[in-house]
């Protein structure tokens, strides 16, 4: 039998492969949202250059808001993608875990006094401690899933329920405030740089995960384990450990996202911080075209998916949708996006595309 057909012209070949590529889905969603905004109000895309309240030059506009606030989501989507791939389930405790790790950051920075004049510890120490704590909680989830074989959603329900209380308990239910301006740079702007810092942090995370995926077998192993764990075990892999480690990595992502979140406020609100972010993170993975039952994944599609979700949220805010009604609107849009990206619909679309080019209806070989 022949292998591939090289007689197709390059253009249709490109579109054909694009149809098959996962990243096609979030790209289409992004385009649709952009077109919608362009029609409704082109000023959505206006980016202005001005001074903020501290007198530093910053870029502002809806696009910058998306880059800014989409960053935590993008960072979480990295970990959530790995968890989904390896364990075939999702972690719904990331919002509560963010509350915990954010609370830890404040606790370390403020010590016993909730409103100190000076920082009680260097910021980097606070960040590292929160990383360790978040990874421990990730390890807790991972142990339940990998070694006790509890369904991921059920296992993480525990921390989902208890997390915010734990977060409050860490600071004796007080609301510490950090007055040091340097701390607010991480969730705001570094003086002199007009682009929001969270975006830089997200980019750093993306570069790190890209390097990890390139220079280790994390991608291959977690996909193999997620698709067929019995078979991967017979190939020398340790499926339970791969699942476990994916939750620990997500813990690290949670710590980074939590750090940004508390830096934005220089304080914390235990019940509101990162509320419902787990759903957005899971949606980002889904919107990236990744199967939520595990297996093959595309990291770039998930990350783009995260920004598309933020794009959607920002669009809705701009339409002056009330914050209580936001989720309802979001749900509708998400339904549409998910239906469009469903394999069934994509197949129909690509068939439609084929019909438009009848000479290809026969497909495949010469």
């Amino acid at each position, binding site marked *: *039998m*022949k*292998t*591939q*057909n090289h007689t197709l012209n390059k253009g249709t070949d490109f579109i054909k492969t694009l149809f098959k590529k996962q990243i096609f889905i979030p790209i289409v969603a992004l385009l649709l949202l952009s077109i919608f905004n362009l029609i409704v109000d082109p000023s959505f895309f206006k980016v202005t250059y001005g001074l903020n309240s501290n007198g530093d030059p910053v870029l502002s506009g809806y696009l910058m808001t998306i880059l800014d606030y989409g960053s935590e989501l993008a960072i979480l989507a990295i970990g959530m993608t790995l968890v989904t791939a390896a364990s075939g389930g999702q972690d719904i405790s990331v919002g509560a875990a963010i509350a915990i790790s954010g609370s830890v950051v404040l606790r370390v920075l403020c010590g016993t006094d909730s409103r100190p004049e000076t920082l009680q510890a260097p910021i980097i120490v606070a960040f590292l401690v929160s990383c360790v704590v978040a990874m421990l909680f990730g390890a807790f989830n991972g142990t339940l899933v990998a070694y006790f074989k509890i369904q991921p959603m059920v296992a993480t329900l525990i921390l989902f329920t208890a997390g915010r209380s734990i977060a409050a308990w860490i600071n004796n239910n007080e609301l510490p405030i950090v007055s040091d301006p340097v701390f607010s740079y991480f969730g705001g702007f570094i003086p002199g740089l007009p682009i929001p810092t969270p975006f830089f942090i997200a980019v750093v995370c993306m570069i790190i995960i890209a390097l990890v995926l*390139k*220079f*280790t*077998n*994390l991608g*291959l*192993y977690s*996909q*193999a384990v997620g*698709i*067929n764990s*019995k*078979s*991967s*075990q*017979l*190939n*020398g*892999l*340790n499926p339970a450990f791969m699942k476990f480690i994916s939750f620990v990595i997500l813990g690290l992502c949670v710590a980074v996202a939590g750090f940004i979140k508390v830096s934005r406020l220089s304080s914390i609100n235990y019940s509101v911080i990162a509320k419902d972010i787990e759903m957005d993170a899971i949606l980002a993975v889904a919107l990236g075209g990744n199967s939520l039952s595990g*297996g*093959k994944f595309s990291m770039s599609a998930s990350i783009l998916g995260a920004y598309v979700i933020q794009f959607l949220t920002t669009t809705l805010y701009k339409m002056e949708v009330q914050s209580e009604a936001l989720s309802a609107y979001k749900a509708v849009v998400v339904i549409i996006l998910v239906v469009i990206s469903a394999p069934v619909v994509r197949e129909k679309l690509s068939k439609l595309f084929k019909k438009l080019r009848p000479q290809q209806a*026969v*497909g*495949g*070989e010469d």
Partner: protein
Amino acid sequence: MQEGTVLEMRNIYKYFPGVKALQDVDFTLCEGEIHALMGENGAGKSTLIKVLTGVYSKDSGEVFLKGREKAVNIKSPQDAQKLGISTVYQEITLCPNLTVAENLYIGRTKGIFINWKIVVRDAFNLLQSLGIPADPNQQLSSCSIAVQQMVAIARAVDMECKVLILDEPTSSLDDHEVAKLFALMRELKAKGVSIVFVTHFLEQVYEVCDKITVLRDGKLVGEYSVKELPRVQLVSKMLGKDLDDLSDIKSDSLKYEADENIPPVFEAEKLVSASGIKPFDFSIRKGEVNGFTGLLGSGRSECVRAIFGADKILGGKVKINGREVKISKPIDAMKNGIGYLPEDRKADGIIGDLSVRENIILALQVKKGFFKPFTKAQANAFADEYIKLLGIKTASADTPIKSLSGGNQQKVILARWLLTNPEYLILDEPTRGIDVGTKIDIQKLVLKLASEGMSITFISSEIDEMLRTCSRLIVMRDRKTVGELDGEDLTQNMIMNTIAGGGNNV
């Protein structure tokens, strides 16, 4: 349509990306006949069945059914069911945790309320009339696989079925169970049901079928009456070549001279795993091919799994080249130069959604380590090399392995282990569910690898296949080894005797 014809498929075409799965295939089924559909893997049998049952839509062609003027359009398995076409697949598709009666009638009862008494009575009558030895109140999972298969058939037949398709129903049955299944098939035939029988087993075709339709490479080779087509002819029609190959391999005399001075490549003493086998001793020398034989469930697969560390090891000593080592996980075995092709290709072998390339490099990659991934170029080179070497039919190395035919999937798994360049390779049923051509390829490959110094353990349900390849056989019964045969003793009779317990070695 001619008189007496139940089903006619004309000029069927079906394309998949990169593959012409069916080209101008005709298929005719007469009333009350058992019609075998034969062909190598990838010949188009499954595709034809799936077109007929509405799983795939055909690209062109027509399907006619008795009693209907026009060609019918079957869009889904439900459509096929309504038209009286039922299918029973190789894997049981019933619910094991329900009772036999529930399985027979689930989804078919009318109304909200169900009178279970009547259902059980109906089930009893149905099972009786077909002579199926099952109690309606029995939980399905407690029945043997053969009875489960029969229940599936009974369910299919009871739904006013005119055409019954049996897709490799016998692959997981032993001879006794096959005989029972055949009795049921003859019973149905007598009742006027037309049966399409897809199988790899030649003997079974000659035992039970009336007609044979042979496909090859997606094309129709022809339709023959069983009486007019000798076995050799059938094989050569399926392969599209003469049978010299078959006899070639048979005449190879298997003599293995062990060098007693060199310690065995692998040696196990009182090895026992959590799978329920009795402790066993085993050894294999450089360049030797040996095998485990025994009936289904005799523990032959459990033995090799223990050697590879796939089940929890409870005790015993293992030596590699005379040096004592500890093998408690597959990775330990792999690092000691052992490869293992598992019995259940779908559940234990392939990683379905991953590409052919990733499936090929997986074991070597794991052996190499987490922090040392192969570059794309290396991976491609490996994949291309083995796709060519083993003649794997795939659109490209990027194709997900699950879209390949069974034989080609098996070749990919074989490639995976050959790539790790093992000293000792275990092949558990490498030829199950595979076409004759690939079977011979694999047998030849085994002998070639052994002549190059690889030690191989070869397990197969087909005794003649083991006689062709192995120079020593370990016979198993009831989860323990009951004998070892080599040299002159290696005959079909002797093996049977030992398995049955009448041999000299017991």
